């Protein structure tokens, strides 16, 4: 018993940095939100009416498109007011759901990390129980998520996407071969370093990285509400 108490004392300072679950993993539970303009454009962008300026969240600011894909991206950008899938309120895919602009709540346990989003009741079940991705091909909007802990970082491997979502309103896009690796690392109790590696050999010449900070909501009684995106046009029929 003495040895246990001594061990607890020795470990305590290291464990004080970030909240931890009973099994010692960093506890990501809580309500989080990105506070940036990545949903408008992942890269450096000047302000336009209704769309604030923002600094790039892409490492090096360059998205390494293949030539044909760069041309398509430019076309997407020119026609973004009508072509952005967000206009149709489709599920926004990963990682766009993270920085779409609305809060989300993480519930963590040893075998499963659940993320519930205010946007359209979108949800993600990130299985951390060692199970592999189901056999594909599957064309899901939000993909299939399997996670594991790399030290204190939750690493989430995502595959099985369709090719219908964009990364932002600026027309950055991908194919159904998209492979997304997310890394959630607590910087302290109230900030997550959110790093994402995007890989899609059909569209890009190499993998590229996104990095941003997610902020914890600390307001008393803050909770998720609803943004039932696709319902707005239908609501008038159901008074």
């Amino acid at each position, binding site marked *: 018993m003495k040895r246990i108490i001594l061990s607890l004392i020795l470990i305590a300072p290291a464990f004080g940095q970030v909240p931890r679950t009973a099994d010692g993993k960093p506890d990501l539970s809580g309500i989080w939100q990105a506070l940036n303009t990545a949903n408008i454009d992942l890269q450096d962008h000047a302000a336009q009416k209704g769309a604030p300026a923002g600094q790039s969240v892409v490492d090096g600011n360059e998205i390494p498109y293949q030539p044909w894909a760069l041309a398509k991206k430019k076309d997407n950008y020119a026609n973004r007011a009508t072509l952005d899938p967000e206009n149709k309120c489709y599920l926004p895919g990963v990682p766009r759901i993270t920085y779409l602009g609305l809060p989300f709540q993480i519930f963590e346990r040893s075998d499963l990390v659940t993320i519930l989003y205010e946007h359209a009741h979108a949800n993600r079940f990130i299985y951390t129980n060692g199970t592999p991705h189901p056999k594909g091909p599957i064309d899901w909007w939000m993909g299939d998520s399997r996670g594991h802990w790399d030290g204190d970082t939750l690493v989430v491997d995502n595959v099985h996407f369709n090719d219908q979502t964009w990364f932002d309103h600026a027309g950055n896009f991908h194919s159904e071969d998209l492979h997304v690796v997310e890394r959630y690392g607590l910087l302290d109790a109230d900030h997550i370093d959110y790093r994402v590696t995007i890989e899609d050999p059909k569209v890009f010449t190499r993998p590229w990285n996104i990095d941003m900070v997610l902020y914890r909501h600390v307001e008393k009684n803050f909770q998720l509400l609803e943004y039932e995106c696709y*319902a707005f046009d239908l609501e008038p029929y159901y008074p």
Partner: protein
Amino acid sequence: MRFNSILLVTALLGTFVTGSAAAAEADKNTWPQHTPDGQPKVEGYWLAVDYGMGCLQNPLAGVGCLKEGEEPGRGNRSKSPKAPSRIIDPADGEIPYQPWARTKQQYYLSNYFEPTRPEFLDPQQLCLPLGPVRQLTWHDVHVLQYPGYVLFEHEGGHVFRIIPLDGRPHIGSSLKLWMGDSRGHWEGNTLVVDVTNNNSKGRLSRAGDFASDKLHLVERFEFLDADHLRYRAVFDDPSTYTRPWTFGFDLKRAIFGAENPTKDDAHYEQWEEACYEGMKPVDYSLRSDRSEK
């Protein structure tokens, strides 16, 4: 002295650890087990015993309690397989609508089979969230428990409910939500949930049954044993009904998997049901346009 204090603390800790280990061991052999924050452990997938949303009086019957394929006016309720009415109270099994509300419900129902306007389409056909009560009657729900929370993950249309147990007040009354605003607490093995802020747009059945956005719901999820759940919801909405009434049905623990079905549902996963993304435009479902399309 200092040594004695350490001994005392060690002895007390020892007693505590032994005591809680014994309690945990006892808990393992009885139902229900408990979560670390003291909730009865009721996690898993749950499913309505009698599936169906067409008729509250007989969920196994067709829309408006008609037989499958029957048109209104020629129906015969007695010919349908019978399941318990979901209207527990009043005893006559009818929702105590005010006269204007009954007229409105019948108007929706009479237009269900040949919808000419969007409001005659059942909200479920448009992939809309169905509200806290009706959503529970559709597909399975995965119940998950966390310190201070119960989560309901509905497979249908990936709708979820987050139910805080910390006694916090409801959100402002002018904020209306498709799934309402839920506050829960445990009374023994019964989860009691107070639901306000309902926009009530999801309706209660395909037969046009409805509440208003003034609805106050009190739900009772009574977990009878490891595999059986009795659900009751009292509808209080003086703007629509002549008296409060009770919606109720039974759920069972869902066991999935064609091969080696087991109560150990760890192998089951809810997969994406992107309902709206596959939906046809509203006009497509309307009678006047169907022939052209």
